[in-house]
């Protein structure tokens, strides 16, 4: 009986992170009554979750997110568009691993196909463009695939984009890691949020976000709310995925532009 529970929960967990507003990844959003017009470059909001304290603790690792208040069921934050991770650059973020399997032929084939316009310059835009074009079949049907599988299938959602992007930046000699969280988007159709995955790359002394899954979409205001990182890139990566969903909010409330 319990094995069935493990299987089912882990299978469903993988559907919660996806590329663009799939039904299971959508997080309910309500704007503050005072919010009129598009959101600014900095917002305040409440995240509702039974794991609010754990989410607050995790978010403190990113510069640009200020945790203003925490209760058992919610936390209020002020955040910038792209918070910057301030933690250490661990050796594993540069390694070939079970999940980011740089040594597999299909992964090598993918990474060797990337030709930068200038060998001396690491371009986030060029990496995003290459991965975005490489994964020709954007689909939500996959659970969670390794870099070599994505490189072979050229198919997937945001997790596959993030895994392949991480493989590429590591192959280019840059530390990289897969981040799970929530993305909040303000575009002409309204404000939406959903579970998402992206890559963080360490370049020029700073961590920065690379999001090949949403590359090339129309201009919008996009806030990244990080939650967790795949720290276990071995065969037990499933537990990292499960930990990720535990740090997802059930709702974003009182969203409004924050004043400095």
């Amino acid at each position, binding site marked *: *009986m*319990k*094995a*069935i*529970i*493990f*299987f*089912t*929960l*882990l*299978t*469903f*967990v993988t*559907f*919660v992170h*996806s590329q663009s507003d*799939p*039904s*299971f*990844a*959508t*997080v*309910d959003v309500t704007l503050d009554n005072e919010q009129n017009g598009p959101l600014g470059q900095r917002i305040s909001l409440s995240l509702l*979750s*039974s*794991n609010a304290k754990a989410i607050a603790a995790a978010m403190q690792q990113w510069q640009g997110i200020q945790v203003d208040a925490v209760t058992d069921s919610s936390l209020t934050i002020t955040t910038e568009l792209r918070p910057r991770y301030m933690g250490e650059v661990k050796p594993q973020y540069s390694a070939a691993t*079970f999940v980011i*399997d740089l040594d597999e032929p299909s992964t090598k084939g993918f990474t060797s196909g990337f030709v930068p316009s200038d060998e001396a310059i690491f371009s986030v835009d060029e990496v995003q463009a290459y991965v975005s074009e490489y994964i020709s079949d954007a*689909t*939500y*049907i*996959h*659970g969670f*695939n*390794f870099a*070599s*599988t994505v490189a072979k299938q050229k198919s997937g959602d945001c997790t596959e984009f993030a895994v392949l992007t991480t493989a590429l930046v590591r192959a280019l000699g840059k530390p990289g890691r897969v981040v799970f969280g929530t993305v909040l988007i303000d575009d002409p159709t309204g404000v939406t949020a*959903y*579970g998402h995955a992206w890559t963080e790359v360490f370049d020029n002394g700073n961590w920065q976000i690379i999001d090949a899954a949403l590359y090339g979409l129309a201009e919008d205001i996009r806030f990244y709310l990080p939650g967790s990182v795949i720290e*276990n890139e*071995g*065969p*037990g990566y*499933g*537990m990292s995925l*499960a*930990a990720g*969903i*535990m*740090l*997802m*909010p*059930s*709702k974003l409330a009182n969203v409004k532009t924050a004043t400095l």
Partner: protein
Amino acid sequence: MKLSTIIPAAAIAVTFNATAKDLLPLESFPEWFQTSMVRETAITSTSEFSLAPFNVKAEVIGDIALADNAEGTWYYTIDIGTNAPVECYVFNEYDGPANSMHAVVGLSLDGAAELNGRPLTGRYNYAVDTGVVGSTPYLSLDTLYHVGEGENKASGVIKALSAETENSLQVCVHSDVGYRKAFFDTFASFVSAFENSTENNAFFQSVYEMRINDIPMGYASERYTKDADGDIMIQSTTSLLVPVDASAVSRTDSADISWSRPDGSLINGSTYTIENGVMASKFAIKSSDAKWHVEGNIQGKTVEAQLAYEGWLLSDYGSYLETANLQEGEAQSAQFYMWAPDADPVTAMNITLRQVSDKKDTNMAIDMGPMKLDFYAEEHGIFKHGVMAQGPVNVYMTSIYSQGIPSL
């Protein structure tokens, strides 16, 4: 499939509604389509059906005829008085109820396009469901499709049902719009012929329905039998059909076999999972030299490991015994180690089983690493229903069939 089974439709607006098992609200369609969707028929005929390799000999609803047989596949048509017959396949080699049914639906859609001489121009998940025929769980997927464009556009619905019985898989499809009950009754009759052909020697058997945010996504089933030595064989299957957007469906079929001692300790086990038509993982665990050894592969990558944990592992059978022990004893919680390859194949998982008294319809909880499941267990630790609510997702498990007790 007959041409008359599809409906000319210049434009049927399709919106995805992920809140009900009918994913497309019927009221959003033109009235003539709504009328067609709810039409039914009374099936008055029955016929003799036999299939020797599976020891099947029974009377089934409708007029059944073998249309084709090759390489472990039997293809039948069953006339139920509608324009198109019900088409049923029997496979003795297959991926599983979710993957194989999806493949058959794909063939049916290709057939519809070919028959109409117009390309397939759209497919939408119309409805998903799960349930049981007797003790056999089934999956259901209805697909709305379009062929052609503009004034040449036509629409139809492929209804599909799938169930795995002893050593074979039954998949039925019906391409007439409407007749949902008639189709289900025909399928149920067909599956019952297989279910009734074998003796059920399980001392405990259960089926659970899975739901996410109130949409049925599939089932898990388990079956416990005792061998001559008194050990317990546990066979479990899980089949999930998740409509991830308006037209795509993620398919997962998993099968496990493990052995337990009567005290609830694991002897050995093996498992495999097929996702979207591809073998995703395959693992086995056994004990030798007082250590646990795991071997297998995931996404084609080999895994061979010896667990750091060397103590006894709780089997699925043991999980029932321990739940019952907790219910009957003084302790409020108990900790165990289990092997859960989907979570981590190379590490024994420490789980905690707790009694709960402050939540409605909940008397137990299980903590599995970062995951927590609240559930209600009846006498003998039998799982009745449970929920994992986290983030935007509520995953529900509900018992829809149970026979016997998980205790010798």
